[in-house]
């Protein structure tokens, strides 16, 4: 019996520690620890919902747009606002641009280096790389010979830069399995991906001013008013990204998968899923019926049990427990009335070991993320998703209609490219939809509040999964604010019943050959695309503690 740890886990957002007990080369127990506390919910107390939308997006620099939108939806529900159709389309494009940015960056630049060894690409024959790319049906936009020269110059310099201390030699040199040609091809796409993720963010910048931390989405709709030039720019960029995604990402995934078929044998997790849905659908606003709005999203809301049966979300089934986290007490609280007070004690896996709280749905741990969204969309029979999922299931050696083939580390990593393809096509459609709406004279972008007192919840999705923002507002000032982030679901510690969180469950059973470089554990962690900065957060203690406003009308001096 031995302990293996990864701390810090890199190529994620935020600070994460993984500790595992390894028995006969297999993980027998696991603890996931989120390392950073900042206290977002306390900061937005007593500020306006519009301010909150700007502040809370700063919880995460990878998916700020989702937070801005979930917060705006919460504010709109509190204020009785139904946003205009143009605002809906604009927010879809903005959110879609972020999904593209995030999914591309994650697959190639974050998770990719668990499978791709650019230094092995030095041994490739560039001519064979072309042949390989052709047979895999993937894109060849890079001059492979020039890339090889560039890599060689880099290697000859002797400094490894971002490859310093890499795990390419893990598992006695057997951890990385690609041929030199495949490695060079994927390295080319790693570098192209850096370009395309930035290109996706240009769309966010056109609509939101800058990315990360967009400026225009707010309670009531958007501040962005499209001009013809901005629409033309958006369309050109959206089409260019679609072309690259549709000729590259699924193809690379299927070319890479056969080398790593072992990675399909572990990493299932808890097998239950939550998706709150994202990208509001056409036919908006469905008479203002929130449940219908969520069901009609392009990626619909759905809660899935062990046998993939889908049900509608019920807010009061969401709870949070903190007995294993660095907060006072060990109570379980029901949404949206969470009560927590931070209190660091010590790192002890038998007691408290993380800043992440433990959320549950109907008392159970749930996995959130792209796989959850795709499963929900599949069960809700979204045609594009059904077709693509069936194709990929067959390609991975499963059967069409059997979702269980995806319940593994590699499956979770692969299925996300279906979403990327879907969203990249939708963004083009949405820009065209907006052009038509503007041409037909539709010119409402922002809607004023009906009231300044109320409460509302924004159910939405970040690229990493189900996102929940809830707020209570009195006279335009926030009196209570709660956030449940996707990674809080995935990185949850042990619950009150002693059951491990989803990522901990996924880690248990992972083969670890090399305690120093547990590469398969790292692959499993990255398959969730964890994002810990936002996973750690606290809520207002209901102790009657009252925060005085410190803002005088003319400023603090």
């Amino acid at each position, binding site marked *: 019996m031995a302990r293996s740890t*990864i*701390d810090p*886990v*890199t*190529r994620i957002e*935020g*600070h994460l*520690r993984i500790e595992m007990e390894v028995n006969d080369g297999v993980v027998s127990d696991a603890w996931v620890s989120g*390392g*950073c*506390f*900042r206290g977002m919910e306390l900061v937005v107390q007593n*500020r*306006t919902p519009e*301010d909150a939308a700007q*502040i809370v997006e*700063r919880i*995460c620099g*990878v998916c700020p747009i989702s937070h801005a939108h979930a917060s705006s939806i919460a504010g709109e529900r509190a204020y009785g606002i139904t946003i205009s159709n143009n605002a809906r389309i604009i927010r879809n494009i903005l959110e879609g641009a972020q999904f593209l940015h995030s999914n591309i*960056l994650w697959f190639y*630049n*974050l998770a990719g280096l668990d499978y791709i060894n650019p230094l092995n690409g030095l041994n490739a024959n560039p001519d064979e790389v072309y042949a390989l790319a052709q047979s895999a049906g993937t894109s060849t936009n890079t001059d492979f010979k020039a890339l090889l*020269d560039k890599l060689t110059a*880099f290697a000859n*310099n002797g*400094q*490894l*830069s*971002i490859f*310093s*201390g890499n*795990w390419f030699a893990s598992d006695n040199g057997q951890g990385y399995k690609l041929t030199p040609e495949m490695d060079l091809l994927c390295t080319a796409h790693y570098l192209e991906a*850096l370009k395309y*993720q930035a290109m996706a*963010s*240009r769309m*966010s*910048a056109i*609509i*939101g001013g*800058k*990315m990360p*931390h967009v*400026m225009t989405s*707010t309670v009531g709709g*958007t*501040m*962005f008013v499209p001009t013809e030039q901005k629409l033309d*720019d958006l369309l050109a960029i959206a089409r260019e990204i679609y072309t690259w995604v549709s000729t590259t990402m699924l193809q690379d995934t299927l070319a890479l998968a056969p080398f790593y078929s072992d990675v399909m044998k572990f990493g299932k997790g808890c097998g239950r899923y939550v998706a709150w849905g994202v990208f509001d659908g056409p036919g908006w606003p469905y008479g203002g019926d929130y449940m219908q709005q969520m069901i009609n999203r392009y990626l619909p809301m759905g809660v899935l049990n062990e046998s993939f049966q889908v049900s509608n979300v019920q807010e009061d089934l969401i709870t949070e427990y903190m007995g294993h986290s660095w907060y006072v007490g060990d109570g379980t609280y029901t949404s949206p009335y969470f009560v927590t007070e931070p*209190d*660091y004690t010590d790192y002890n896996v038998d007691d408290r070991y993380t800043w992440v709280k433990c959320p549950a749905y109907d008392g159970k741990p749930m996995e959130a993320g792209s796989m959850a969204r795709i499963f929900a969309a599949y069960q809700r029979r979204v045609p594009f998703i059904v077709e693509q999922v069936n194709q990929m299931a067959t390609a991975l050696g499963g059967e069409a209609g059997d979702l269980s083939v995806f319940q593994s580390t590699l499956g979770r990593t692969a299925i996300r490219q279906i979403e990327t393809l879907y969203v990249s096509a939708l963004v083009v459609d949405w820009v065209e939809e907006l052009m038509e709406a503007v041409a037909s004279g539709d010119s409402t*972008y922002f809607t004023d509040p009906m009231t300044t007192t109320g409460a509302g919840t924004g159910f939405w999705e970040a690229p990493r999964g189900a996102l929940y923002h809830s707020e209570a507002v009195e006279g335009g000032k926030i009196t209570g604010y709660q956030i449940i982030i996707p990674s809080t679901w995935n990185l949850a510690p042990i619950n009150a019943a002693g059951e491990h969180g989803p990522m901990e469950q996924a880690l248990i059973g992972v083969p670890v050959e090399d305690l*120093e*470089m547990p590469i398969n554990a*790292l692959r499993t962690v990255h398959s969730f695309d964890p994002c810990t*900065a936002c996973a750690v957060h606290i809520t207002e203690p209901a102790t009657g503690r009252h*925060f005085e406003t410190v*803002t005088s009308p*003319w400023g*603090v001096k």
Partner: protein
Amino acid sequence: MENQATISEFDSILASRGVSRRSFLKLCGAIAAAAGLSQLAVPRVAQALEQSVIGATRGDLYPVIWIEGASCTGCTESFAQIESPDAATIVLEIISLNYSETLSAAAGHSMEEAKAQTIEAGNYILVYEGAVATAWNGNALRVAMEPGVDALVQAAKSANAVVALGSCAVNGGWCAAYPNPSQSMGVQQYLQQAGVDTVVVNIPGCPANPEWLMAVLVDVVLLNDPTLLDLNTMNEPVGIFGQTIHDNCERRGHFENGEFVYHFGSEEEKKGYCLYPVGCRGPQTRANCGIVLYNDRWSWCVKSGAPCIGCCEANPANPNQNWVQVNTPFYHRHRDIRIGDWTVPPVGIALTVTGIIAACLVVHGFGMKAFGRMDGGAPIEKIRKWDAEHPDEAIGQYDDIQEAIEEEEKQTERLKNGGGR
């Protein structure tokens, strides 16, 4: 000159890395603009880069350690969006990014080893992103079983310079906003308390513009002595943070014409009118966003229709003066207007349309420059002319109105004598 590469050597290094002369000059241009230099400075930047030791005779890339504190990774993300040069070029050809929690291939102890080796070798730059969270003796942030503050001190001690990147690193940013639950503060203040005297360069912004970082990195590498950097009293690069957003705003003309956006998403917004009435903090926030722009120069806040919310406001010596605390509520009220070193409260001006225009005119009087707005610009008027002539009826407050008048007269005298800046 043994430690300097000749120009021809430099060219061959560029060539061996597949960087054309043209794209190299493009990089120099980007750096010059981000640093607030005129494009006329491009040849000088190019020459300086060529004569530096980056990737030259030592065969070395300048080592960089990039530590994330209590961060959202937004500044890293922002860095990953840079195009001239792109992020891949930077990490493979310009700097050696030996430790980055977001980009490194390594993980766990291998990462920590790479960092330890870099620290031991010395001669590196530390980029610190995120707030310094001090609550629970620094355990609000734990990395590799250590409080995050210890990692900062270790890495900062032997660094040639520390770049505090983003408003959180400068003074805690939003993390430090009331009630500052993680007891966050900025890098400079924390290092001072810990007795570490490495030079700290502050680059505020939420996120910081990656071109600002590139400009500072190149400056540090070129000067080879960070104490020679041209920094203001807040340790910010003068070229970047010397003027207000308002000074260089693309909508400034509409401000001066009295053409305003009063309602989000309105016809006025489509016309690109001035966002001052919906809360723009441009007149009080210092940064060259409107010149450098974001995301490969595609846009910036005001261009997309959003008022500036003052995210570059960060007093490194005081976490309470973080941009969220100073600027909320963002869209409804106007706080003190900053002109040069003076702050002017828009006293008695009600939140009405006419009041707002009146407020704008006050700013206008103060904000006008004697000569142009670009290329460093002319010195800011220390006192509005009307106020100087009617000290008893001055609108706004000056620390000492007599002193301001004298200073203004001296400056006028200097300008007359051809002294300029």
